[in-house]
């Protein structure tokens, strides 16, 4: 295989990791029935904090921990405002995203452009030597491997454990979950905190691995992309992972084609394509257009195709729950 293409694919896997982690975190949050709209600001603040803490302490672990704590704290503010004060989750999340972005700019200015630490390269023995696949998937650092593993763990958790069933019931029908004995508010707090910690980890992945260092607004826009990927992925882990790779891959492919002189488009137009495609796909899937085209699919394949195209948000997404 063309070595340029292989390295492009490896870059794609690396660049998609933070999006993958953040979108899986948001998936857990939304499956619990809570919308955390603060992702964009949280990722920025967490990226800055991860860099600043690891820069000052010399410990990468401390940086990652700080980022996760920030993500968790912001997410807990969103859920606490919703549960205790019945505030609109979207309003609180939106204000927090702007506030966190400004905080990252203000407190991160002395770290801007500084050289810091990097998560060490850790190729996986044996697997790294598999032709093409080894270079694309197994010659990265531990955070990148974590991003693949996370998808599998989240999928297993949601669909193959009792806790996952309870998580889904929190988002679909919290009243029913409560009647069945689930402590709705407590578990919502737990899952939202976990989702927030993953969003914080996504920030750390940016500043310590993917876009090394800190610059004002360096991750701007990625939180919104992660939020859109959750919808694009129909609130399902593997489809979300596909969405993250699709978005990053599209950009990588366009850059590759440009490098190879196959396609000569300005970078701004290339930057627009993921958004255009995301909108087109969302319209195609959510407008019912896709389902209406199912008639041309052979009846044998129809249920599978239906399942693939289904985009249904959790029934109680964004709503407050009160014990009756």
């Amino acid at each position: 295989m063309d070595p340029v293409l292989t390295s492009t694919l490896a870059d794609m896997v690396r660049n998609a990791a933070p999006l993958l982690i953040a979108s899986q975190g948001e998936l857990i949050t939304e499956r619990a029935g809570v919308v955390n709209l603060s992702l964009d600001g949280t990722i920025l603040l967490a990226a800055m904090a991860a860099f600043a803490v690891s820069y000052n302490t010399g410990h990468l672990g401390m940086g990652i921990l700080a980022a996760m704590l920030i993500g968790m704290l912001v997410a807990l503010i969103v859920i606490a405002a919703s549960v205790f004060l019945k505030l609109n989750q979207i309003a609180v999340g939106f204000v927090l995203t702007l506030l966190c972005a400004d905080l990252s700019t203000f407190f991160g200015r002395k770290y801007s452009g500084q050289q810091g630490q990097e998560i060490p390269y850790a190729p996986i023995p044996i697997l790294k030597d598999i032709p093409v696949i080894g270079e694309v998937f197994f010659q990265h650092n531990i955070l990148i491997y974590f991003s693949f593993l996370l998808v599998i763990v989240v999928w297993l958790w949601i669909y193959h454990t009792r806790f996952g069933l309870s998580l889904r019931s929190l988002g679909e029908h919290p009243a029913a979950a409560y009647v069945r004995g689930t402590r709705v508010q407590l578990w919502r707090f737990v899952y939202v905190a976990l989702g927030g910690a993953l969003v914080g980890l996504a920030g750390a992945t940016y500043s310590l691995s993917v876009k090394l260092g800190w610059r004002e607004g360096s991750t701007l826009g990625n939180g919104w992309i992660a939020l859109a990927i959750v919808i694009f992925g129909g609130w399902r882990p593997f489809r979300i992972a596909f969405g993250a790779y699709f978005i990053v891959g599209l950009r990588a492919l366009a850059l590759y084609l440009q490098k190879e002189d196959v396609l000569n488009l300005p970078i701004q137009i290339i930057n627009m394509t993921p958004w255009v495609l995301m909108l087109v796909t969302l319209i195609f899937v959510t407008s019912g257009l896709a389902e209406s085209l199912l008639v041309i699919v052979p009846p044998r394949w129809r249920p599978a195709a239906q399942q693939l195209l289904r985009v249904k948000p959790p029934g109680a997404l964004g709503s407050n729950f009160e014990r009756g």
Partner: protein
Amino acid sequence: MTAFRKFLIQTSSRTALGFFPLLVGTLVALGVIVLILNHEHVEPRAVYDLIYERTLSLPENRANVVDFWLPILLCCCGLLLTFTAGLWNIGIEGQITMGAVGATSIALFVKLPHNQQILTELFMAGAAGGAWALFTGIMRTRGGVNEIFGGVAMNFLASNFSTYLLVGPWSPPNATGSATVRFPDYSLLPSMDKYRLSPITIYITLTAFIFVLLTLSGSRWGLQLRAMGKNQKSAQMLGVPTERNIWLAMLMCGIMAGLAGGHLVLFRRSNLPANVSGGIGFLSLLVVLLASVRVRWVPIVSFAFALLYSAGLPLRTRLQLDSSLVGIFLGILVFCVLIFDGVRQRLQERIEQRKLLAASGGEKSPPPPTIEIQIGEEVSSGSSSN
């Protein structure tokens, strides 16, 4: 019952509690800023003096604040319509950008008699902003794409499109692509003699504000928008044309945002720079949130925001403080007001429950069915979960 709680209950008149969130929010935000300034070894008094000096001390500085205020107020007017209808028009940044691009397309390449030139530029600004917003509305109603995500995508598309124009077809010769050439004088909005203010923008903003005030306070359409904001499904069942109203509200908001973008390039900048909106769309969203979608509060709140924002640059140049400090202050302020408004509502609910309990002779009765107006959400009634 403690004396303090008795005091709270006694002073729970609407006015007293209404100002409670704003007062506490302002105090908390000021407290945090003082802490940050101490950390940066900057005297709060120096910041206050600088803000006063650069915004209110001289007539030309006051005019500059007003010039900053007008596009924010214009955007807020549009957002009042969409928020009332329960729509989160986060795509307003893109609508401002497209308005600026629309105005620039005429300013750079068309030459007409002055009045027609200005009219055409403003028409293009409004049309481009309106079309951008309308598309988000159509995606919401026909495509099932939530207006928040549709709006975010449209923001990125507008931003990339304007950057493409700046580095590509509209790039001046031997330039870095950070701005177009200065527009010819006949393309620019005229200024007042004494102060650098655009009378046309003042008329447009005043008209937009009166229109929104009248629409939301006493028109059938305003009533329909309110009904949609409370519960879109119920409004639809009662015969409100929800789809048409979503399109109209988005279109009106987009036109106002586009005109704000037009003002930025045709008056304040005299060219199209990169990142032309500069965050005023998001700032306007914060204003409307802080004003709790109350039309009469919006001019005052937006003026206060404009005053603080226009002081951002001097903070950086004179005190070596990042201008994001203003954003932090406003963010904390809006956040605290939201939180303490929630506290106030819960407090009022408890007081009403106690009153009901006392009226029923101590017998426990179910809580009254409260109606909460939540922006972008359907009405939640009573103690139901969904």
